[in-house]
C-alpha cells in the first residue's frame, strides 16, 4: 500500500504547481500596484485592455497571425499528407522523415532567415526586385501579420502534417475504394468521400494549430517586436520587461488570464471535435494496403515540384540566407563585391565564454528535464489508468492543463512566484533550477499522453499476475511496467530533450543572467542587440550541436508515437 500512496503523492506534487501557477496568473491580473507594496486590488487592468486601442490592435494582430498560420500550414500539410498516405509517390519515407525532423528546427532559426530574405530594408528578395524594376517601395514585407503568419505556418506544417496523416490512417481505405469501384473518378472520390470524412480531423488540426498560433512567441519576437508589431505573447513579454518603465504585472496578468481562458476554450473545442472525428474512424481487422493512386509521370513531377517548393521555403532558403549572413560583417545581397568580404570573423567574434556556459546549461536542461518529467508522469499515468482512486479524473484533467496554458504565461507566473512569494525561503529566481522546474511543468501533458497511450495497451493482468505473485507496487513498476514501456519512454525522452534544446519562449522570461543562460537565449540576445550577422553565426553553431541529437532521435524514435501525443 505504501507504494501506491507514494505514486499518488508524487503525482500530486507534480500537478499542484500547475494549479498554483494558473491561480497566480488570475490573481496577478487584479493587482493595482507592484509587488512589495501593500496589496490593493483593482479591475482597472481589465478595463484598460477592453478600452485601450493598442491592446485592441494587439488582439486583432494575434487573431490575424493565428489565422494566417493555420491557412499556411494546412495549405502545405494536407496535400503532402495525401501524397504520402494515398499515392504511389516514390521516396515517401524520406518525405516523412524530413517532415518529422522539420518539427525540430527551431522557429527562431527560420524566422531570422526570413528576415534576411524579405525584410523591407535589408531583405535580399526585396533588394533584387527594387533594383531590377526600379521600384520605389519594397514589394514584400515579412514584418507584417501575413508575413509572420507565413513563417509560423511554415514551421507548424510539420505538426499539421503529422496530425493529418493520422486522420488518413484512421480512415478505412475501403470507403474510398468502394467509390472508385462503383464508378467515381478520383476527383469525385476526393470531394465526396475523402474530404468530408477527413474534415473533422482537419478541423481538429486547425484548432490545435490556431491555439499554438495565439500564444506563439518566437516569430513575433524575432520579426515583430523590433518593428513594433505585437501579438499577445510579445505584448505580455513587453509588459513584463519594458525598456523604460517598471514592469506592469497587473496588465500582463490580465492579458494572460484572457489568453488562458481563450486557450482553454479552444482546447475544449479541440477535444470535442477529436471525439467526433473518431466516430468516423473504422478499425478494420484486416491489414491490406489501400489502393494507391497512380500519379503517372506528370503527377509525379507536380508532386515533386510542390514538395521541393515546400522544403525550399520552409527550411532550405532560410538556412542558406543565415549561412550567407553569418559570413558577412553586415548584411547585403549576394554579389561579387559581397563575396570578397566573406570571412569567418563572425564565428571568431562570438562570445565563446558565454556560449560554453550556455552550452553547459542547455546540456543540463536536456538531461534533467526529460528525466524528471518522465518520473513524474509515470506516477501520474499510473494514478490515472491503474489506481482505483476516486479522484483520478481530476488528475487526468490537471495533467492536460500545461498543454492548454501558453508556455510564456507559465514562465511569467513562475517568475512572479519566485520573485515575490518565495524569494526569502527558496531563492529560485535567476537559477537554472527554475528553468528545469518550469520546462518540466510545461511538458507534463505531452509525456502523460505518451505514457497513457502505451500503458493503456498493456493488459492490467500482466501487473495483477505479479501482484498475486507477491510483488509490491514499486517492484511491479520496475520489473514489469518499465521494461514494457521502455520504447515509449525512450522516444519521449529524446523528443523532450530536443525540445529543451530549442526552447526560447520560456527562457526569454526565465533567463536573467549568465548563471542560467541557454544557447537559444544567446542567439536571441545577439539578435535583439542588433548584431544580426553574429546571431546568424551563433545560430549555425548551435544547429551544428543539435545535429547528433537529431540523428540519435531518428535512429531510435518511431514516427507513430508523435501522433499519439497530439
Amino acid at each position, binding site marked *: 500500500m505504501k507504494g501506491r500512496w507514494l505514486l499518488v503523492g508524487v503525482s500530486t506534487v507534480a500537478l499542484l504547481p500547475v494549479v498554483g501557477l494558473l491561480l497566480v496568473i488570475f490573481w496577478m491580473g487584479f493587482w493595482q500596484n507592484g509587488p512589495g507594496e501593500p496589496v490593493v486590488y483593482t479591475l482597472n487592468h481589465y478595463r484598460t485592455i477592453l478600452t485601450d486601442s493598442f491592446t485592441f490592435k494587439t488582439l486583432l494582430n494575434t487573431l490575424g497571425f493565428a489565422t494566417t498560420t493555420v491557412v499556411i500550414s494546412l495549405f502545405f500539410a494536407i496535400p503532402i499528407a495525401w501524397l504520402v498516405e494515398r499515392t504511389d509517390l516514390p521516396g515517401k519515407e524520406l518525405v516523412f522523415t524530413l517532415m518529422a525532423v522539420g518539427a525540430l528546427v527551431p522557429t527562431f532559426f527560420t524566422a531570422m532567415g526570413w528576415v534576411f530574405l524579405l525584410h523591407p530594408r535589408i531583405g535580399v528578395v526585396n533588394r533584387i526586385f527594387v533594383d531590377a524594376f526600379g521600384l520605389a517601395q519594397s514589394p514584400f514585407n515579412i514584418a507584417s501579420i501575413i508575413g509572420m503568419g507565413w513563417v509560423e505556418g511554415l514551421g507548424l506544417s510539420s505538426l499539421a502534417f503529422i496530425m493529418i496523416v493520422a486522420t488518413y490512417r484512421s480512415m*478505412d481505405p*475501403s*470507403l474510398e*475504394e*468502394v*467509390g*472508385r*469501384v*462503383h*464508378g*467515381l*473518378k*478520383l476527383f*469525385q472520390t476526393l470531394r*465526396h*468521400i475523402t474530404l*468530408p*470524412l477527413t474534415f473533422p480531423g482537419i478541423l481538429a488540426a486547425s484548432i490545435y494549430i490556431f491555439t499554438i498560433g495565439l500564444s506563439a512567441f518566437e516569430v513575433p519576437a524575432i520579426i515583430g517586436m523590433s518593428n513594433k508589431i505585437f501579438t499577445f505573447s510579445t505584448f505580455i513579454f513587453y509588459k513584463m520587461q519594458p525598456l523604460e518603465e517598471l514592469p506592469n504585472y497587473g496588465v500582463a496578468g490580465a492579458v494572460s488570464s484572457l489568453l488562458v481562458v481563450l486557450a482553454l476554450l479552444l482546447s475544449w473545442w479541440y477535444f470535442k471535435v477529436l471525439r467526433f472525428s473518431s*466516430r*468516423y474512424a*473504422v478499425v*478494420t481487422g*484486416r491489414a*491490406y494496403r489501400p*489502393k494507391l493512386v*497512380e500519379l503517372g509521370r506528370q503527377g509525379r513531377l507536380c508532386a515533386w515540384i510542390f514538395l521541393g517548393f515546400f522544403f525550399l521555403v520552409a527550411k532550405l532558403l532560410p538556412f542558406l540566407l543565415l549561412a550567407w549572413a553569418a559570413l558577412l560583417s553586415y548584411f547585403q545581397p549576394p554579389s561579387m563585391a559581397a563575396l570578397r568580404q566573406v570571412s569567418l570573423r563572425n564565428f571568431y567574434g562570438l562570445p565563446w565564454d558565454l556560449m560554453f556556459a550556455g552550452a553547459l546549461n542547455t546540456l543540463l536542461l536536456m538531461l534533467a528535464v526529460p528525466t524528471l518529467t518522465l518520473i513524474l508522469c509515470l506516477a501520474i499515468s499510473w494514478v490515472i489508468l491503474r489506481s482505483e482512486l476516486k479522484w483520478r479524473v481530476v488528475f487526468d484533467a490537471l495533467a492536460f492543463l500545461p498543454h492548454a496554458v501558453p508556455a510564456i504565461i507559465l514562465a511569467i507566473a513562475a517568475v512572479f512566484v519566485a520573485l515575490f512569494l518565495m524569494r526569502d525561503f527558496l531563492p529560485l529566481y535567476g537559477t537554472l533550477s527554475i528553468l528545469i522546474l518550469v520546462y518540466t511543468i510545461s511538458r507534463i501533458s505531452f509525456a502523460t499522453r505518451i505514457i497513457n497511450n502505451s500503458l493503456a495497451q498493456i493488459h492490467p493482468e500482466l501487473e495483477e499476475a505479479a501482484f498475486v505473485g507477491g510483488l509490491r507496487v514499486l517492484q511491479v513498476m520496475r520489473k514489469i511496467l518499465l521494461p514494457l514501456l521502455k520504447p515509449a519512454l525512450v522516444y519521449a525522452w529524446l523528443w523532450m530533450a530536443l525540445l529543451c534544446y530549442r526552447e526560447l519562449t520560456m527562457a526569454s522570461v526565465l533567463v536573467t543572467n549568465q548563471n542560467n543562460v541557454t544557447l537559444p537565449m544567446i542567439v536571441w540576445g545577439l539578435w535583439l542587440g542588433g548584431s544580426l550577422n553574429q546571431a546568424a553565426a551563433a545560430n549555425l553553431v548551435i544547429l551544428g550541436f543539435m545535429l547528433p541529437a537529431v540523428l540519435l532521435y531518428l535512429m531510435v524514435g518511431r514516427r507513430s508515437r508523435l501522433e499519439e501525443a497530439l
Partner: protein
Amino acid sequence: MISVTGLRKHFKSGEQTVAALNGIDLQVGQKEFFVLLGPSGSGKTTLMRCIAGLEKPDAGSITLDDKTVFSASPRRNLPPEEREIGMVFQSYAIWPHMTVAENIGLVLTHGPARLSQSEAGERIRHALRLVQLDNFEKRPAQLLSGGQQQRVALARALAINPKLLLMDEPLSNLDARLREEVRTKIKKLVSELGITVLYVTHDQVEAMVLADRIAVMAHGEILQVGSPYELYCDPKSPQVAEFFGSMNWLRGKVLDKHNVETAIGRLEVDCRGKANGKVVVGIRPEDMKIDAPEEILGNRLEGTMAHSTFIGDQMIFEVRINDTLLTAKAMPDGKRPEGKVSIYFPKEKMVVFPDEAGA
C-alpha cells in the same frame, strides 16, 4: 464473363517478396455464382482486388465480358471506375457521413450513369426494396446495425445494375444465425437478377451453400475448381479433401487395382490407376458405419470402441483398430456401443492419393 490467365502478383514486405498470386488461370461463366475458397493468406482476396482494379498484377491478363481490363503486355490497366462492377467489401465500407439514400445515390448521380435526382431516387428505392430495407432512405448510416449495413452495401452494389458482382467475405462480420439467413437470401436474389457473382470466403459451408462452382485456393494457387459435390466427393488432392471436412488418413501399399494393405488391414478401394507404390487412403468420419447391418458385405473390420461423445445432433466415436485411432460420426440413435465393434468402410466413399511423403 471473367477470364483470368497467368495472373501473378508479388508483395514486398521489407526485404522479402511474397508471392500472393502464383500464375492464376480462371474462367467464370455468364450468370454463374463462383466462390473463391481458401484459408487466409491463400490469395483469394488479392485475386478479387486485382479483378476489381484495386490491385495491379505483375503479369497475366484479366478480361471482363470480352473487355480486357488488365494485361501486362500489351500494357493495359483500366482504373476500377471503368470496369463496371458492383462490389461488397468485408467492412461494408458504408460512408458514415451520409444517409442510406446518399450512400446508394452518390455513385448513381456522380458516377458514369450521371442520373438525375429523380431517376436516382427511383433506383435507390428499387435497390432498397431488393434488400428489404424499404423506407430506410433517410436513415443516417451511423444508426444502422451490422446486418443493415451489409444490406445497404449490397443495395449500393446492385443499384448500378452491374453484370458482375464481387463480394469479399460479406458475411464474416455477422453473427452465425443471421449469416445463415442472409446467405440464402443473397443466393435467391442474385439468381433472380441474373448477375454473375464472384464471392470470396474462408467458410466451406458458406461456399457449398452458395456456389455453382468453387475454386479452392492455397498459397496463391488454385488447387481445384469444381461444383461443391465434386469437391466434396472427388477431391483431387488431400488439401482439398481436408478443406471440406475432417478426414481419417491411412498409409498403405497398393496390392492390385482394388486392394490396398494398410495398418488396419486390407481395404477394398478403387485405386483408379494409382495401381502401384505407396498411397494414402482417406475416408470421412461420417462415411464410416459402426455395427452396420449384417447384409452389407466387404470392407468390414473389427475394432474396439475407445471413446464416444454425444454432441446433440451427432455421435462422435473413436475406434481403435490395430493401434490406429479413427474417428467416426453417426446420427444418435440412443445406442452407445462398447467393447468390440465392427466398422464398415464403404468402397465408393474412400479416396486414394499417391503417398508423396512416403514415396
